């Protein structure tokens, strides 16, 4: 045990308060992501899945005791005979989903990202991915979206699944992405891992680009700018867009290229944008800097001879702290202010 870890464990504490004297508590596990200034959509995943299932009678839903916490309860309530409660058994969840897919069904299996990526990995790899079965694994609490500590913070899920052949990986930003994504992954004839914002999910992308429509496998420029190109995924695209607005005050023009599909990666668009030259290229992701979007972009650029000045924003290679989510996002540099400040410091 180090001195620092002994202090953390044994030093007495007092109550911390926010700027207005309020107590700063750990966000509840079902809390929605803070997204000031955006409208929100309730349970977009659950509602989109019900819609898709009305058109495709092969769609079934399964959860390992987390239907309520992954918005799958909306589907379970609307179509109870097409929902399977598998109990607190993630290995079984993935195996049974594979079995249903073998019998011709289109299963959507939900749990938390930590449990899919860590506990059930072998079952996803061998029962689902190796056989290229169309199981759609949709997981709440991706990256740093809970203050419950490492047991619930899936900070390396993208790295884990990127190494898995056949797997399509999506990290949607917002409700717009989810509503567009669900019917597209339902139609995809192969395994998918999708991160899942759930609860009240902000609508961000269409605010910045009214004609935005999610396209599986495509990265899309949400806003243009001549000084910086931010390539981002997941909710970090929201933070990147907000940071870009903030940077306008400093006469810094930041473009935001949203890359929600991590695999297969849209190499063409990334190279076209990063290859324009004259811009600092920054990646931003809600994931460890090991093995996620940043390293994917770096590899894409380097192997194609495109070498802009390149920086990465992401979570450190550490087990993260417990606490209130806004505090943690600030601590690890994921807030709008921190992203803007970081980019300014690099210019």
């Amino acid at each position, binding site marked *: 045990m180090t001195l620092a870890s002994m202090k953390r464990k044994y030093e007495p504490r007092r109550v911390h308060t926010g700027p207005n004297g309020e107590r700063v508590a750990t966000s509840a596990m079902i809390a929605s992501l803070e997204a000031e200034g955006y409208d929100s959509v309730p349970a977009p995943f659950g509602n989109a899945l019900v819609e898709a299932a009305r058109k495709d009678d092969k769609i*079934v839903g399964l959860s390992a005791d987390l239907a309520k916490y992954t918005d799958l309860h909306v589907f379970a309530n609307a179509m109870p005979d097409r929902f*399977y409660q*598998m*109990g607190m*058994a993630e*290995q*079984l969840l*993935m*195996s*049974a*989903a*594979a*079995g*249903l*897919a*073998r*019998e*011709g*069904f289109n*299963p959507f299996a939900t749990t938390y990202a930590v449990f899919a990526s860590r506990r059930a990995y*072998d*079952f996803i*790899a*061998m*029962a689902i991915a*190796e*056989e290229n079965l169309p199981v759609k694994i949709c997981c709440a609490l991706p990256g740093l979206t809970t203050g419950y500590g490492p047991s619930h913070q899936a900070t390396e899920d993208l790295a884990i699944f990127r190494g898995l052949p056949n797997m399509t990986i999506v990290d949607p930003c917002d409700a717009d992405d989810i509503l567009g994504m669900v019917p597209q992954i339902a139609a995809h004839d192969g395994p998918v891992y999708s991160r899942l914002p759930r609860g009240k999910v902000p609508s961000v992308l269409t605010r910045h680009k009214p004609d935005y429509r999610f396209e599986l496998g495509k990265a899309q420029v949400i806003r243009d700018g001549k000084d910086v190109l931010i390539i981002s995924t997941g909710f970090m695209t929201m933070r990147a867009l907000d940071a870009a607005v903030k940077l306008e005050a400093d006469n810094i023009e930041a473009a935001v290229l949203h890359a929600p599909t991590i695999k297969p990666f849209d190499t063409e668009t990334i190279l076209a944008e990063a290859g324009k030259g004259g811009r600092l290229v920054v990646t931003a992701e809600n994931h460890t800097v090991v093995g996620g979007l940043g390293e994917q972009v770096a590899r894409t650029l380097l192997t194609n001879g495109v070498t802009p000045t390149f920086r990465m924003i992401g979570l450190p290679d550490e087990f993260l702290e417990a606490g209130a989510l806004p505090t943690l996002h600030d601590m690890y540099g994921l807030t709008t202010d921190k992203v803007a400040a970081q980019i300014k410091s690099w210019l």
Partner: protein
Amino acid sequence: MTEASRHHATSNVSLAQRAWNIRRKALLMGEVQGQGYIGQALGVADVLAASYFHALEYRSEDPEWEGRDRFLLSIGHYAIALYSVLMEAGILPEDELETYGMDDSRMPMSGMASYTPGMEITGGSLGHGLGIAVGMAMGLKRKSNPAFVYNLMSDGELGEGSTWEAVMSGVQHKLDNLICLVDFNNQQADGPTRDALATGEEEKKWAAFGWHAQRVDGNDLDAVVAAFDAARTTDHPGPRVIIFDTRMCKGVDFLESREITHFVRVEADEWAKALAKLEEGKPQ
């Protein structure tokens, strides 16, 4: 039952002869590679003979026929045994026997669905089969398809937690179309299964979870057949398990009496001797 799917039921080849043929093919494949999980194949041959020539419905010429009973090999390293019975059943061509384990073969050393007709799943990572079987049994019920799902697993797989997740789930979802076959030869990689995690009375454990549970001598064909019949026809409202106590290397006495290990070593000159021994015990 249709004639096309159960042609074997009217065959005049005895189950004992089928089991003998399965053992012989396994030995011939073992000889090709000079190695293989021959002890398990010889031990489980009677169970496989009863499966494919008594219990299962299938069409040899159409291994993906929708009405077939599904047979999952959770234990990938038993592939040598399943290839033998798939050849015996006419699902795999017998003239490919000598490709076993060779480059470009349809019969790799560990069973994989993408290589072999009749191989329903990719086994080998142990503790996967029963969970997949649960999902397939749920899927068959959704389709109102009356087929059974059989999952053949080893006693060592009783140590995998995922097996027990599936055991509970089979009862939860009332899967009376699911039949689990456990080959209990009391031998896993490091030694006797009983010395590892299987502490005995396995059939009582399955029964306590709500399964229709039987335990029989897996090398007594009459007992094996009776157990299959009971498992298929019981009115128990849930899944069924048959634990087969089998003898590794059954049918080749000098291998049976050798110190039994998970991976039985057979010297280069012993394959012919083993085949000759088997020949002596050929059913009349």
